């Protein structure tokens, strides 16, 4: 039976005893405040030190005594029936109890702060003063219920009457207990709702005919009555739909999608392979695979690499600063901008590192043998990128040392959980993909053999584990296991043939599809914040499709950069071929995105929003112009045009990610959502992000010098 409380603002006199009592019961520190344009209201919003507060509203009304309504509204976590924060949490640190309270377990929390972004009310806040910021919010005083009852008072045993009163007092939240008026009532949600309805019925002229929270966000455990529209007293219009309902379909689709996608990729591989066998066009793989690979012979120390090295070192220093000063002390993140530059970089990085899976997929699954020579570079770039995303995440997480909780907790439908596992497993796949390069460099036949034998098995295990974690369902796990086991068996190395990492490629594509799309799913919980030009129920699809185009663009750019900076020939044919695929990917992405937008009426509202310019740059410059530049084989074969096309395509998608995280986000911060939203990344944030990118590039060069990553130059 779920509890709820009623806040009848018409009875509230703004005495704020609830606000102080809350601090007392929860032992919260005071905020440093000043008198401001908010009048008597202090502080301005909820925070990690303020779980509940009264907002003051002077609402002109000529009909009323004194020509105004002076309305006081108590704000706190709404304890949604289907909480966005709980849905967001990857480690079930936030959960809804049977009693109706949404509560938080700091021991589980990894500090990802996704809950802060997901909550339409901005109820979860972080203690930025702390070296390891945890989430703080109202927990409906669920701990009061666990408080042992006193057995004596005034040196006498407690009378049954007093014991009963004591028990009653502890059975309701501290704020409700303290309220001197009828403004706060606590009880079973049905009863409280019935009382709210009865109050309106008994006094229709006292109230507007709406119980805020009855239906808002799918219903909440905090119900409001007021004499004025709720928008005037700091309660946002969050719609009536449950927020998790937006993301649940996408996330429940993951386990079947893994099995199906794996199967489809396997079948594609078989068909292509059979076609090749039938056509008997298969020649010695060495030949198909081109000239083979060699280590890069060049000077390590150049002005560019020294600069990169310095930047990378600065990132190291910044990382130290990050942990010495804490997240709040080293970044400009806030309760409003709980995510910032680092998340933009993560999203951009993962999107552009999509080149690794895209090329692996093209080469192995789709038998685009002509691309074979750039595969290793793409994989190394992917491995390094993802690794540094992980490093950034360590910096970004408030409590990174709780990461192991991801392994032991079972959230129901958290995009963050999906992304965490999927990215984690994908990094191991990337590592496995890159293994042969290292083994080849070490000339370890034994290593290659072991790799050949165990890599497919690892894929089966990893995929099955992933499906199990996502579904907690043995049937789906079994299906995924069977699909991948059958493929592993079917695609086992034939005696005498060269090992083909097809299972790793299939896994790479599968995992990437899942997490690239799930990165988009992260934002499904934010229809209230993300501009509708970006928010879409198919944002996962958009993210996935764009990551292919972005990834391939980056591979093209990377190859051109390698050629240029190491004085190698530009393999323009190969790159043009890749650009063709890029063109197709970009085209599909843009058609899907714009088509979806059009179908959902996104254009009928007119392109007048504040973010229209950004949208137009994304779609016209990064989309249309890039498509034009990459549209014909002739254009693609022109290095300049190719460069421009790839750059625009990449730039458009980079901008897309930045828009989704920052620019097109209407972040309002904690309720009453009145704080001006402003964010500019701190020096530490910039240093970490830029430094780690520098490190990626630098390490790529070192990697290419140490291991046979780049194709042998054919003179």
């Amino acid at each position, binding site marked *: 039976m779920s509890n709820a409380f009623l806040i009848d603002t018409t009875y509230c006199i703004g005495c704020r005893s609830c606000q102080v009592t809350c601090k007392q019961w929860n032992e919260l520190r005071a905020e440093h405040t000043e008198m401001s344009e908010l009048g008597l209201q202090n502080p301005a919003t909820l925070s990690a030190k303020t779980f509940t507060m009264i907002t003051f509203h002077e609402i002109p009304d000529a009909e009323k*005594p004194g020509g105004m309504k002076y309305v*006081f509204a108590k704000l706190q976590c709404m304890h949604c029936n289907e909480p966005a924060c709980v849905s967001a949490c990857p480690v079930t640190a936030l959960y809804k109890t049977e009693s109706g309270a949404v509560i938080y377990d700091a021991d589980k929390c990894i500090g990802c702060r996704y809950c802060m972004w997901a909550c339409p009310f901005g109820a979860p806040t972080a203690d930025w003063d702390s070296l390891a910021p945890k989430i703080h919010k109202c927990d409906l005083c669920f701990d009061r219920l666990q408080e042992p009852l006193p057995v004596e008072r005034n040196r006498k045993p407690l009378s049954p009457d007093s014991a009963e009163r004591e028990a009653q007092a502890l059975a309701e939240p501290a704020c409700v207990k303290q309220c*001197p008026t009828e403004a706060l009532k606590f009880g079973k949600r049905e009863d409280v709702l019935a009382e709210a309805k009865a109050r309106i019925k008994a006094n229709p002229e006292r109230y507007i005919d709406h119980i805020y929270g009855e239906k808002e966000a799918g219903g909440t455990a905090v119900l409001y009555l007021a004499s004025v529209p709720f928008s005037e007293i700091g309660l946002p219009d969050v719609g009536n739909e449950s927020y998790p309902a937006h993301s649940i379909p996408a996330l429940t689709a993951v386990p079947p999608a893994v099995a199906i996608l794996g199967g489809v990729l396997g079948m594609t591989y078989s068909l292509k392979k059979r076609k090749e066998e039938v056509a008997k066009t298969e020649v010695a793989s060495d030949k198909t695979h081109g000239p083979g690979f060699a280590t890069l012979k060049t000077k390590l120390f150049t002005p560019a690499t020294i600069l990169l090295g310095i930047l990378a070192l600065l990132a190291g220093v910044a990382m130290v600063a990050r942990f010495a000063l804490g997240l709040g002390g080293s970044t400009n993140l806030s309760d409003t901008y709980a995510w910032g530059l680092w998340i933009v970089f993560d999203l951009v990085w993962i999107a552009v590192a999509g080149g690794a899976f895209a090329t692996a997929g093209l080469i192995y699954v789709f038998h685009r043998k002509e691309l074979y020579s750039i595969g290793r570079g793409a994989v190394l770039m992917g491995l390094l990128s993802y690794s540094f995303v992980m490093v950034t995440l360590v910096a970004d997480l408030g409590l990174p040392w709780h990461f192991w909780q991801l392994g032991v907790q079972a959230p129901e439908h958290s995009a963050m959980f999906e992304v965490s596992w999927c990215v984690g497993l994908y990094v191991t796949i990337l590592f496995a993909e890159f293994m042969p390069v290292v083994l080849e460099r070490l000339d370890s036949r034994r290593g290659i053999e072991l790799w050949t034998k165990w890599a497919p098995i690892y894929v089966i295990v990893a995929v099955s584990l992933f499906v199990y974690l996502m579904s907690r369902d043995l049937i789906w796990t079994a299906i995924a296991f069977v699909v991948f086991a059958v493929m592993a068996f079917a695609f086992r190395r034939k005696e005498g043939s060269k090992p083909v990492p097809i299972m790793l490629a299939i896994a790479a594509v599968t995992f990437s599809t899942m997490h690239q799309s799930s990165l988009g799913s992260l934002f499904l919980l934010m229809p209230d914040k993300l501009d509708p030009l970006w928010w879409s129920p198919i944002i996962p699809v958009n993210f996935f499709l764009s990551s292919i185009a972005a990834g391939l663009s980056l591979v093209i750019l990377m190859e051109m950069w390698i050629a240029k900076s190491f004085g190698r020939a530009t393999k323009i044919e190969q790159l043009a071929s890749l650009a063709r695929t890029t063109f197709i990917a970009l085209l599909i992405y843009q058609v899907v995105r714009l088509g979806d937008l059009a179908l959902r009426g996104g254009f009928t509202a007119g392109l007048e929003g504040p973010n229209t310019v950004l949208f137009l740059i994304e779609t016209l410059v990064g989309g249309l112009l890039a498509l034009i530049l990459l549209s014909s084989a002739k254009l693609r074969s022109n290095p300049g045009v190719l460069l421009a096309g790839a750059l625009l395509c990449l730039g458009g998608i980079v901008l897309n990610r930045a828009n989704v995280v920052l620019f097109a986000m209407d972040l309002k911060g904690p309720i009453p959502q009145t704080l001006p939203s402003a964010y500019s990344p701190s020096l530490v944030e910039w240093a970490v992000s830029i430094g780690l990118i520098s490190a990626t590039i630098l390490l790529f060069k070192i990697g290419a010098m140490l291991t046979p990553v780049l194709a042998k130059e054919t003179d």
Partner: protein
Amino acid sequence: MKNAKAFLIGGSNCAENHVMAIKWIQKAQANGAKVIHVDPRFTRTSSIADIYARIRPGTDIAYLGAIISYIIENKLYDEQYLRAHTNALYLMKPEFAFNDGLFSGFDPETHKYENSSWGYQLDEVSKTPLKATSFDDPNCVFAKLKAHYSRYTPEVASQITGIPAEQIRLIAETFAKNRPGTILYALGMTQHTTGAQGIRCYGIIQFLLGNIGKPGGGVNALRGEPNVQGACDMSVLYTYFAGYTSQPDHNLPTLHDYAKKHGTFRAKFVLNALKAWFGNAATAENDFGYGWLMRKNATKNYSILNMLESAALKGDLKLLYILGQNPMVTNPNLNLVHETLSQIEMIVVEELWDTETASFWQRPGTDPKSIKTEVLLLPAAYFMEKEGSITNSGRMVQWRYAGVKPPGEAKSDLEIIDLLYKKIRDLYKDSTEEKDQIFKRAVWDYDSPNMAEAVLKEINGTNLKTGEMIGGIGELQADGSTSSGNWIYAGIFKNGINLSKRRDNKTDPSGLGLFPNFAWSWPGNMRIIYNRASCDETGKPFDPKNALIWWDADKGRWTGWDVPDVPSLTDGPETENGQRAFRMTAEGVGRMVAIPYYHPDPKVEGMPRDKSSLLSDGPIPEFYEPVESPVKNLLHPKVQVNPCLKYPRLPDKQPIGTADKYPYVLCTASLAEHWCAGSTTRNVTWLNELVPEPFVEIPPKLAKKLGVKSGEKVRVWSARGEVVVKAVVTNRMQPLKVCGREVTTVWMPYNWGYKGLSKGPSTNVITIDAADPNVWCQESKACLVNLEKATSGESKG
């Protein structure tokens, strides 16, 4: 209060300062009661009001007079009640007069009234007042009132107060037609040079409407401190002795003299107090030790303002012992307060914190070396750290236990006084001087495990013959056979049981919320005082549905849900005692006008039984402007302010600002979030978070003129001093139309000082230290100031 049908909240911001009152107001409101709030600023209390009237500070008597007039002119009064329970029909002396703002008998030299012309026409034989038969008799009290207030038309009142005339009519209409109605007030009503008379208006209105003595009626003084009622009961007020008996003074050397002046009734209780304090040493032979008491000098005024000024002028205040007060924040005209404190040789402060008073020598801008005063700070315990009783505004005494032990060396006030007294007693043990006898004779034996309860037992009193605890006031004797430290508390320890510990919050047979078995109310556990007035002459309740008490003819006694407020339970309606609904007045009835009268004691020949108390500044409330006012007194321009007021008392230190230099009216008050001097609350960071600093609330129109926005600093200064605080610009403040011109009121909280976790300038640097001539309550609610946008951040305060 939940039984009330109407509330007039005037001079109180109860939603912020007496929050629990709102609970009951809202319960009544849910049953259809109307809430009227009259206040210079729209507050959290106004937010729940059905009628809100904005008033110019200090002009309450003008609109209340108009309401009285409206009730009389429109015959909205309760005639039966007036006849039965008030002096409305009593005949006043024909020579009584009121002309041009002055009552008859005024001496402009002394600023005092010679009040012989104010009395009743007395029966030659019985010496009791003569009564008219009709309200039309021009000499009856009712007719005098009617004539007096005929000048107070809603239009005139509107000119003075700024409240629209229509709204004054609406208030009168609403309050008169929704009965019973109750009135709530606090310092907003009393901190004026006409404060006491303003409260008299409330009494008159409630008498007219028959609203006293009934559930849902009455006048509620919302008291500022949790136990200020208890403290006043125990004679913390300088004019009173225990239980509101008068202080003995040097003109009354014997108990007999005392009885002659103040009546035998009260003398009896002084005697019982003497027995409680001196025990066996108090005998009939030695006048029960009356002579050992320290008596006031009848020519001196012992209010804090006068005491401090006396220190500054004459240096005759050597030692000041301050507990529970922080005058360096709460007294007006703080620069003068600081100067006066510096003249005192020694100050002892008993406090929880190092307050602005305890460290007055550290005041910013002061050179500590220049101050010779020695200050001792004794660490006191917080209320949660000590056991004892606490009495609320409803006279209910509740026992509180210590929740935690005081920290460090801190002790309860009781322990500190106990230790101090014993030490002093030791120092005087060899003295043979008469003035020191009090130390040798007083019984001081509270050394029990429960010191507070030992004191309460003494307060309750003992039957010295049987040794049993006194069970009620009726048991107290005038022959020295009983004792009672404070007669109004007699019976709280009936049968040796501390009744204030009772906590039965379920038994309420009346359904009126009386809960007779919850704690204990003085006198005699009576919940609604003057409840005899809820019945007609025959003893039948006026409103049978809300009956409180009644005369049970069969049993021959007064009975009911509440303890009947009658002199004797068995004296029926046919007796004189059976008609004394207001038995504490000499007349036995409610006094619409307050004029001199001695009620002869039927038992003691030639002695008065009771004496009616008087206000010094007139028998009928009259409107006078605050000392600093932006306008001329519309009713009598020649008598601008209260004629009995002496201000400035120290002309060079008490300048009076004029409207040409100080065009705005400043009203000051406390906040929900900080309490009084803020000594405690400003050390609570949670409260500092809510209101972190002092500020001035100003209307948008003035803000525009000054060019300030909320959060920007403003300099506020008066003839006495200046402060710089942040502005809070709000529509809750609005200018008023007064006497044909626009008058702007600004408002400031007074709770800050230079000590504690939250420091800020004290508003009382600028307030005026004029005071009501009756009770010496300071005029903190109205003075004139000027404002400008601050260029530098610091204030001199």
